[in-house]
């Protein structure tokens, strides 16, 4: 009996379908395939949006907007492109738009430049534990974006350039300057 069981072939687990296969099925209207893609990458999108926008509601809106745009554009996704990179290209653009809109709102409601300079940043709903995190959030958004993609998502500069539409040299310079600005803070804290 035991020998019989031992000689039976062990069932091989069904391999996980690739992102490309899921995207193609989702483009044909398969909701479960789209759900699977959301399961894979929604948290990654939310993580980037939270760190980029530093505001829970803005981040949630940006992530939902990103997935809605991706859903509508699935038929234009090509499998030779990495799905996560394709998705992040949309996410980066949506986050940029959110930040620009936020800037326009601030300009519209606060006309006094002096008041704006000393006013608390109501676009952030987090109190930061350290000066380092505070400074990260106060960086120019494009500099923060470059740091998050480089060291958070571990992207190579060529991938960052493809994703953001900026040149490799501009991105390298942006990262270098942002690191220099932050380095002094780290040394001061230590």
């Amino acid at each position, binding site marked *: 009996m035991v020998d019989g069981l031992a000689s039976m072939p062990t069932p091989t687990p069904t391999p*996980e379908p*690739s*992102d*490309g296969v899921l995207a*193609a099925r989702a483009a044909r209207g398969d909701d479960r395939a*789209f*759900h699977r893609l*959301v*399961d*894979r*990458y*929604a*948290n*990654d*999108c*939310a*993580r980037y*949006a*939270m*760190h980029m926008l530093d505001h*829970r509601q803005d*981040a*949630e809106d940006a*992530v*939902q907007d990103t*997935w*809605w*745009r991706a*859903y509508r*554009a699935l*038929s*234009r996704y*090509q*499998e030779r492109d*990495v*799905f*996560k*990179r394709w998705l*992040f*290209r*949309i996410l980066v*653009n949506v986050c940029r738009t959110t930040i620009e809109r936020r800037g326009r709102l601030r300009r519209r409601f606060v006309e006094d430049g002096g008041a704006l300079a000393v006013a608390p940043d109501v676009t952030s709903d987090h109190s930061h534990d350290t000066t*380092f*995190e505070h400074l*990260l959030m106060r960086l120019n958004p494009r500099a923060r974006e470059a*740091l*998050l993609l*480089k*060291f*958070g*998502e*571990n*992207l*190579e500069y060529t*991938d960052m350039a493809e994703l953001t*539409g900026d040149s490799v040299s501009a991105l390298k310079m942006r990262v270098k300057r942002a*690191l220099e600005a*932050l*380095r002094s803070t*780290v040394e001061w804290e230590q």
Partner: protein
Amino acid sequence: MIAHPDDGPLHSDADSGADPVAARIASWYRADLADAQRIGAHVMASVAARRRRARRRRSLSVFAVALLGVGLTRWLFEARRDTGASPLDGRQPATRFVYVATGSVSRVALVGDFNGWNPHATPLARVRAGALWVVDVRVPIGPHAYAYVLNDNRWTIDPAAPRAPDDGLGPTSVVIVDPGPR
């Protein structure tokens, strides 16, 4: 190349992590973030709700367009009866889209902002079983982004047309439809 869900970051660079500030950013970025998980959990519900709204809007639009179409047809019919002119007089002429296939292609479809990027809406017709595919479409005046879909699954730009600015969703070509000589 396909990213595996467990891979986390897309690629790794040799220089990341060597700098203490970079390492600190990385650890801050990867620390547990309960908010991210909560946001991720709501995505599917949000997409489903937006899809329902879009369908409702589309149904209403189809109804409105149908109503408008009936009214317009009636108006044109009555105008022709009054003046004897053709109902097509003064309409925008069709724009001809041409695709020259270089490989094995059995179906070609035109997709663009003028047909909702629907790969089934505007198929091209093959000319004498050759490499030439054409379709005539009435496209509104103005600039339009478009592309071709080969064999129902391969997205390609028009090699004979200029590229549209990249909107982040994939490459497209651009055509500018002008009103023509007056």
